[in-house]
């Protein structure tokens, strides 16, 4: 996702002189094209994320469109107060982009895992929270947030994820979920970089005679309420799937919505996500997913149990 992000950013930078790229001393060579084209609008802010976020807000107050970028925990949790107070309270167009969502950097250990950021950021007023499911959604999300005026968070995986969409998403809209696969028995609402596993789960279920709808719910805030209403009305089981803690993430957001809208009692909501624990073993993302029950076949097993 990150290479496509850098590419789209360069295109947007060519179109909009207000766009400024702020990096927290990562992305070696990743932004070379942007730097070459717009040297005054690429700034390496160093390993100093609080300052980076504060100065991004100052830029946004002065007519620019800064994008801040580093590894997920450092561009979210590390400078959470600057995001809240400087960007969101002032309601200025700072775009926070993170790399390494969920367990994407599993091998780097829990310091680099990001399973709480959705929870933190979606609770802040004015913040938009977008978790793209593939690189095409990253491109579309970046383009979309540049058209709106408030702060936004885009939570990316790393590099080399499978492309799910066939190409440019023509009608991408913040807050409007995208159907990836039609189905009739169960609805899988996936957010973020775990979208490929949700699709694997649907394949697995199909082999067992279960027809699963898969939706890429790329925007966690604002929620696509129309889609939720429709999903809970149509399906006996609705499952949320995310590479994020079950506490406060996408599943929590859907559960809150369901309770507030009195939709839940007649339907079953299953929330699939990471547990309330640090994952301390060494190993890459696939291993971590397997350990935590987040692979496609494990998700499919959970769904089948729920349907019994």
């Amino acid at each position, binding site marked *: 996702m990150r290479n496509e992000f850098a590419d789209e950013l360069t295109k947007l930078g060519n179109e909009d002189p207000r766009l*400024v790229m702020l990096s927290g001393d990562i992305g070696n060579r990743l932004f070379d094209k942007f730097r070459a084209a717009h040297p*005054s*609008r690429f*700034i390496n*802010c*160093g390993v*100093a994320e*609080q*300052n*980076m*976020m*504060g*100065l*991004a*807000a*100052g*830029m*946004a*107050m*002065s*007519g*620019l469109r*800064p994008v801040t970028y580093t590894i997920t925990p450092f561009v979210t949790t590390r400078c959470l*107060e*600057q995001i809240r*107070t*400087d960007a969101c*309270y*002032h*309601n200025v167009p700072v775009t926070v982009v993170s790399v390494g969502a969920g367990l994407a950097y599993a091998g780097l250990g829990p310091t680099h895992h990001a399973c709480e950021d959705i929870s933190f950021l979606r609770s802040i007023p004015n913040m938009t929270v977008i978790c793209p499911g593939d690189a095409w959604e990253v491109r579309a999300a970046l383009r979309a947030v540049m058209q709106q005026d408030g702060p936004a968070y885009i939570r990316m995986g790393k590099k080399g994820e499978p492309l799910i969409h066939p190409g440019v998403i023509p009608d991408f809209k913040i807050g409007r979920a995208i159907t990836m696969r039609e189905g009739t028995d169960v609805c899988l609402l996936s957010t973020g970089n775990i979208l490929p596993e949700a699709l694997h789960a649907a394949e697995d279920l199909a082999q067992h005679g279960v027809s699963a709808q898969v939706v890429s719910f790329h925007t966690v805030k604002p929620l696509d309420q129309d889609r939720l209403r429709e999903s809970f009305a149509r399906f006996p089981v609705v499952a949320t799937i995310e590479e994020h803690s079950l506490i406060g993430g996408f599943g929590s957001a859907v559960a809150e919505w369901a309770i507030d809208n009195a939709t839940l009692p007649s339907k079953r909501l299953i929330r699939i996500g990471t547990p309330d624990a640090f994952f301390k073993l060494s190993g890459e993302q696939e291993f971590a997913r397997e350990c935590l029950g987040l692979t496609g076949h494990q998700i499919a097993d959970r769904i089948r149990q729920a349907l019994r």
Partner: protein
Amino acid sequence: MNLHAGRIAPDIGALKRQAAELRGKAIAMSHASGSAHLGSCLSCLDIMTVAYWDVLRLDPANPTDPLRDRFILSKGHAAMALYATLATRGYFPEAELATYNKDNGRLAEHPPANLLPGVEAATGSLGHGLPIGIGMALSGRIQGQDYRVYALLSDGENNEGSVWEAAMFASAQKLEKLCVIVDYNKWQATARSNETLQLAPLRDKWEAFGWDAHEVDGHDVAELSEKMRNLPNGSGKPVALIAHTVKGKGVSFMEDDNNWHYRAPTAEEVVLARQELGLA
């Protein structure tokens, strides 16, 4: 835009009278609302006066002019000083000062975002104003604008790590139109600042971080004017003014008494204070 600011010699006597008036207004607000932080307001009001009546290029009728100089009160707890300054300078009616800290008002105990004209940034959480100011200064550079940015920090605020992230960044970027003024009144909320986290030698610290740092008398309006006007000053560096001040300045029974970080004056104390300030 006030094009005369910084070009004609300052009227020192008028600036001193203005500062005394602002002190009187802050004292009145503290008394009427029972609000804390009066000592912190009195220590920075000479700096604020020089900024708003002598140095800043601004137009209260057009508070968001993109070319205005920016002044950020990073020590947001001195909001009464900022409100008195902005109202007196014409950003909003002086009568509104009476609504300070009252229900349904715009004048909260810390400056709000996007609510009151002239407030450049919502502050109150320490260590935020300088990074925001850096963003503004960088924006000016990127957009080819000539404005200058001033950030007023408290000495206690220098406890925050974000201040030093910002200090290193601003000097690396050679932000020569950026000026930090540290209101060095030697106190923070509950103790002597140097005994809490050692600040001394504070000028040396800023200098070591790559700034053109100076120690000034934070109550000498002529010296403040000279240093604050002179931006960029040819050093190619951002400028740090370590302004030696007295908490509670101007009122003998408040000066250097840290109880005035939290307590508010009685009606009798207001009368005495006004007499001392020559406002009676």
